[in-house]
């Protein structure tokens, strides 16, 4: 810093640097404002109604994009969201039913699931068997609401395929 040009050059660079930093800071702030801090999405824990209202077999709940299965007092729930690109799969009743051991217990396979977007196919327990789907349909945790005894699903809590809810 012995002569004036050095100081001038130094100040010029600081000036440009501060200008660039200011513009970048404002750009970053503008972009950050677009990242939502509050989610107004539907809650992930949903009451589905009294267990007695579910028929034996399968019931599709379009709002939750969920299949709820009932065999007597035993319930389980499988997601209808295709694991490929998120379209809603459709259930197709099977002409002959099959009993398979899934997890620790047996499950009656009454349907299979087909995706209209890219043709993925899943078996009745959600296992992906054809098409581009990379993994099985999710199973979600079911429970009974302590206050009014309704069936409750937690769409944020996938469970393994051995999960069953048995209602006393």
């Amino acid at each position: 810093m012995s002569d004036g040009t050095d100081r001038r050059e130094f100040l010029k660079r600081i000036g440009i640097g501060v200008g660039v930093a200011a513009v970048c800071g404002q750009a970053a702030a503008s972009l950050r404002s677009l990242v939502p801090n509050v989610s107004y999405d539907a809650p992930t824990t949903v009451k589905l109604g009294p267990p007695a209202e579910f028929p034996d077999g399968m019931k599709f709940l379009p709002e939750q994009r969920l299949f709820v299965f009932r065999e007597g007092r035993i319930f389980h729930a499988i997601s209808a969201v295709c694991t490929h690109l998120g379209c809603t799969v459709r259930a197709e009743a099977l002409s002959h039913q099959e009993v398979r051991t899934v997890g620790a217990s047996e499950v009656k396979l009454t349907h299979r699931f087909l995706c209209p977007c890219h043709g993925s196919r899943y078996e009745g327990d959600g296992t992906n068997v054809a098409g581009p789907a990379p993994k099985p349909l999710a199973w979600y945790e079911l429970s009974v609401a302590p206050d009014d005894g309704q069936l409750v699903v937690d769409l944020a809590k996938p469970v393994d395929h051995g999960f069953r809810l048995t209602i006393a």
Partner: protein
Amino acid sequence: MAISPDQPEHRTPSAPGVHPRPGWSVTPASDREAGDAVVSNFLFHWFPARALKDSLTWRYSLWLGTITTALLALLVASGMPLLFLHVPSVERAYGSVKDIENVVTFGAWIRSIHRLSAHLMVAMVFLHLARVFLTGAYKNGVGRGQHREWNWVIGVVMFLLTLFLSFTGYLLPWDQLAYWAVTVGTNIASAVPLVGAQVRELMLGGRAIDQPTLTRFETLHVIVLPAVLGVLFAYHMWRIRKDGGLASADRAALLPAKAPVPGEAGRTKTYTLLGLARGQGPLIRSASLERPDTTVNAVPDLTRRISIVMLGTVAVLSILAVFVRSPLEEPANALVTPNPAKAPWYFLWLQEIVTDTTIRIGSFTVNGAFVGGVLLPGLLVALMVAWPWLDRSPAAAAGRWFPRSRRTQNIVFLVLVAVVVLLTLIGTFVRGPYWRMYWPWQGWPEMPTRF
């Protein structure tokens, strides 16, 4: 309009720099009047005073860029009334589009022009890109300071912007088509490694397609993307002038002059009329370019052709829009995925790829959404961007259709295009419910609307 320089002017200026008469003429009587038009008219100022005949031929450029410009102008013009009429709210967007379609006077026609122009623009931008590739027009020729490769990169970016503009416009009617196309599209974005979920959330403004998504897509569609496209378009045009005009000009410069140009040998200039500003470019100032019979005045020869192409495009679209109605499906329903759920035609090849590219290696699975939706298109775009630097063919191959030295790369390009076209055709005509294959003459089985 080639007038020899020694022909007397109609009126001589009273002083240097003072034009003989204000304004300009579409039918100039002299070279000077023709030049005045370019200087004094705002819309003409981006043209050179004189243009090469070779650049103006129909069969070289096919005028695809000009057609695209006309379509963009039509899109802006037809978008304005739609912007006044469309209500960007989840509850009312569908109803407002239905009103445009059925209640507003000329509404269906305006919407049809907007939609058809958008579809055609995607096609024309792509054809323009294909023309530039096949003629090697991204190659630098003989002029100094040329950077055609960067104009090609700008063009690729504008192509992607056009696709993104189409995609964002797709959601605005808020019908079934819109909702599920955006579901699939944004889920492809979430297949990007590491940041995918955040990218999707940023696009949607939440975790589900809702009001924030509509607001974001609307803003992108009417403000952000057109503004970026407009700036890039201006730069695209400016670069053509900086690079010495179309690539066919370089080719013309290499051709030997048919006859010596009288009195031209001793002339020196620091620029040429074709717009090469940087460096003197001795080769581009070859005698063949300076000959009066190889160039014509931009006004009216260039402007006349541009008018024909632009007015022709507007006429075709206006008439087409009378006969082709725009579809509007049922209102968006998050509860029911339509069967089959098809993307717009220019994304169908991608939909085919994401269907076919889920890879399983043992227990390890790679989602087709990543391979077909991110990796393959990303590679294609990267390849397109990098191509001018990979192309080692000689400069003489620039500005010619199918030169021998570029035969292999042209064939590879055409094969890739053919694959994309084939996948698009399969997606359009062969895919039915549950994305199964049905021949066009086979009926689709009756599908229940709910399971």
